[in-house]
């Protein structure tokens, strides 16, 4: 039974990962879209794309954005991690969950929020103009894009650096204190150097995420004529009038060619990370480092970041959703309205989108957790070379941005005729989402499984329980809270997802995120703001429940 179960897991994962990827590779070597009867094997698509100056400049911009946001996010994230984990920063308990909030916000919503808050005619821009006579910033620029991308990715570096700092033996810092070092010197010479592997790891991660950015450059870069690789890919769709699938395949592969080595490098880094760690005995209670006079300036830094990264765009979105129009010389009190929310009713596709989003998050999220649990159990305590194969398989989708996975699954459903009818159902979105979040979901599951001590399972086996009984009577009941937590996290991730659904968007497969992307092209700001508020409120509610249940967000 175990053998069948495990083979099933490996084959299924291989199928959902290699199937779409294989199709992209195949398509890239054709002269036209694969369904065209005149499609022939050809290198033409590569020649066209690699010679295109638009591709070159998109490539350059992607590189700049990735690099710039890493330079901003990593130092800031590491500093916040040190302040929250190791010092006596005031309001720590309250601030900590907020630091992770940007992870659960859809970038396209954030980007839209920045536009209406600090764009050329944004609420805060006009306010600044009335005070200063001019707007001291330019949102639609490479710098604007880099700064916002950097600030919104601070949580990713915070996450890894803080978890490394938590496992650091406090006595190494106490030794520095006794020797006479103040908190900043301790951070710079002891704590942060000791968690260098995690800092490097998060740098590689953020650099990688830079190439996968889609919502931010689409909204913030486009008006300034800035294209990155993903938005270049998105624009290709309409470039030639006919579906230029072969060109899209080449662009998609060029992104994967950049991201895959980064994912691989991260994996190597993770393996050698143990070398540095000074792991404390039992996580014993320790006295946080006193910041002294820096206490309040330090809180100021955290609050300022929160204000710019979370509050500014969210206030923008919320305000925009309740004003009928906005521009210079308009008095806020005179234009307040709830019409945008009422207007949603006149668009059946938007209503379907809202329902679909919640269905996909709630039911789809649960099914995905079930799927991840099956894969996780199959690999659990399995000593075989197949486990490392499975590890590599799971790693692959991390190199695939949602936009590309969605595109690939669109092709899969077009290519394999027997499953074609599923394309217009939520199943197509569900499977694409499940693949995009495969690595994340499995990490959640295996983190739970790691906590199950092997003796608890061995005890059941010796007493006479077969493998299936052990899973059902011991393993799964023991990780049930982990499974519920994973479900809530997947729920949020699926609700905020936007890029994966872009290419799969059609009647029956509307979701809020991809509707916002498509509405952005039409400039329907009223509807976008209403949809954004609904999405943020849904995610906020689940986040609230998760926090009340004590779910760890830093998985």
């Amino acid at each position: 039974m175990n053998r069948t179960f495990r083979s099933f897991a490996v084959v299924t994962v291989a199928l959902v990962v290699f199937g779409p990827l294989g199709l992209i590779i195949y398509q890239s070597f054709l002269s036209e879209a694969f369904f065209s009867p005149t499609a022939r094997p050809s290198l033409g698509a590569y020649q066209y794309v690699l010679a295109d100056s638009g591709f070159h400049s998109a490539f350059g911009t992607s590189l700049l954005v990735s690099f710039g946001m890493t330079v901003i996010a990593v130092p800031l994230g590491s500093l916040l991690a040190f302040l929250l984990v190791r010092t006596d920063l005031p309001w720590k308990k309250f601030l900590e969950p907020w630091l992770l909030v940007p992870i659960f916000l859809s970038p396209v919503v954030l980007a839209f929020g920045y536009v209406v808050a600090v764009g050329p005619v944004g609420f805060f821009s006009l306010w600044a103009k009335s005070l200063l006579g001019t707007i001291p910033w330019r949102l639609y620029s490479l710098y604007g894009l880099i700064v916002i991308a950097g600030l919104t990715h601070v949580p990713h570096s915070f996450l890894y650096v803080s978890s490394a700092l938590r496992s650091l033996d406090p006595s190494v810092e106490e030794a520095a204190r006794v020797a006479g070092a103040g908190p900043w010197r301790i951070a710079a010479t002891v704590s942060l150097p000791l968690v260098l592997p995690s800092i490097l790891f998060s740098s590689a991660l953020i650099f990688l995420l830079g190439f996968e950015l889609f919502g931010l450059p689409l909204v913030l870069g486009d008006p300034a004529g800035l294209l990155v690789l993903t938005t270049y890919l998105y624009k290709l769709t309409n470039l030639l009038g006919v579906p230029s699938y072969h060109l899209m395949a080449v662009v998609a592969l060029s992104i994967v060619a950049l991201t895959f080595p980064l994912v691989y490098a991260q994996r190597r880094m993770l393996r050698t990370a143990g070398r540095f760690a000074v792991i404390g005995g039992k996580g014993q209670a320790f006295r946080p480092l006193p910041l002294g006079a820096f206490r309040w300036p330090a809180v100021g830094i955290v609050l300022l970041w929160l204000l710019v990264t979370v509050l500014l765009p969210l206030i923008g979105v919320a305000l925009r959703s309740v004003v009928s129009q906005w521009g210079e010389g308009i008095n806020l009190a005179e234009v307040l309205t709830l019409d945008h929310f009422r207007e949603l009713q006149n668009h059946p596709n938007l209503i379907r989108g809202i329902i679909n989003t919640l269905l996909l998050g709630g039911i789809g999220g649960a099914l995905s957790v079930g799927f991840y649990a099956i894969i996780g159990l199959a690999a659990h305590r399995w000593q075989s070379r197949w486990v490392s194969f499975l590890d590599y398989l799971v790693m692959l989708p991390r190199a695939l941005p949602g936009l590309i996975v969605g595109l690939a699954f669109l092709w899969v459903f077009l290519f394999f005729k027997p499953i074609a009818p599923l394309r217009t159902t939520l199943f197509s979105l569900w499977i694409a989402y499940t693949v995009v979040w495969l690595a994340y979901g499995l990490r959640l599951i295996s983190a739970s499984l790691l906590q199950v001590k092997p003796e608890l399972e061995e005890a059941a086996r010796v007493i006479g329980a077969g493998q299936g009984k052990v899973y059902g009577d011991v393993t799964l009941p023991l990780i049930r809270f982990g499974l519920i937590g994973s479900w809530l996290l997947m729920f949020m991730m699926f609700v905020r997802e936007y890029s994966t659904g872009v290419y799969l968007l059609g009647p029956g497969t509307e979701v809020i995120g991809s509707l916002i992307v498509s509405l952005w092209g039409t400039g329907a700001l009223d509807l976008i703001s209403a949809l954004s508020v609904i999405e943020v409120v849904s995610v906020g509610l689940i986040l609230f429940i998760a926090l009340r249940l004590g779910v760890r967000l830093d998985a």
Partner: protein
Amino acid sequence: MPDLIAKDIQKQLGTAQVLCGVSFELQPGEVLALLGPSGSGKTTLLRSVAGLERPDNGKIEIRGRVVFDAATGLEVPAEQRGLGLVFQSYAIWPHRSVFENVAYGLRLRRVANAEVHQKVGDVLKRLGLDHLAERYAHQLSGGQQQRVALARAIVYNPPVLLLDEPLSNLDAKLREDARAWLRELIKQIGNSALYVTHDQTEALAIADRVLLLDKGQIQQEGPPEQIYGEPTSRFSAEFMGSNNCFEGKIAEVSGRRARLAGDGWTLWGTLKAEKSRDTIGTGLVRVESVRLADGAGDHRLKMLLKSALYLGERWEYVLELGDLRLRTWGETSRPAGEYWVSIPPEALWIF
């Protein structure tokens, strides 16, 4: 017919040969202790019997039924061996009550509900746990958890009970009580038991027979008195008890006796290994076999008492003579000075 036969068990983990061909038998009702330092392979041996590890070579039979045979590739999975195992960490399932922990084995065997209640009730009562049936692991003390683990392992009457350092997580005081209680219980239910421990006192106290393991091999096998009193190898001699160990030159050999000499001293002892004259030998004598004597005599040395340490229930004296340094125990404090010390030749083993 023995309850358990293990033949030539070999096991390699990574590059280390953990078990290098261990064979033993366990007779019905017998308690056999697997004693050895950490890394001696005793836990691997126990886990091989339980079916949680697969040996590279050998054969295991439980009451005449072959459960593992490397030659034929036969391996009965752990859940079909019907054994009982008490884990070092107890491994009480935290999501089940004491009752449900103990009842699990019976439920798997499709025992009728009424009988489950009766059997679990009996065993809990026997172990003094009947008032804790509805509790969960985190509501129990270490000693109680240990008894739940035991109850869970014996409730379905396994042919062999396996115990992996069952007392090592108890504090020292509790451990001494549990030792006597555990032996009594195993004898009462009449099970044969394989008992893994690194604690020699525990092994000597609890077992009918001790298997002394080192580096994956059996060093010595026999009843507790023999293991302690008649070591056959230097490892057995050194591993057990508290010892004085010193080097000297073999000055004279006479049958099984030899005279060991050093700087200003000479002592007769019992040869435990083949040794010839004028080679270097190692003398080994248990601390309690060295005694202060009231005057000169055979097998006595006049030594200088350097210090007396108070250990609570006794005193430890450190004595010196030339390059010979000995420890011994006594009941009273003694001032530094010269004392006669008796070292009987039958207690001084020469390797």
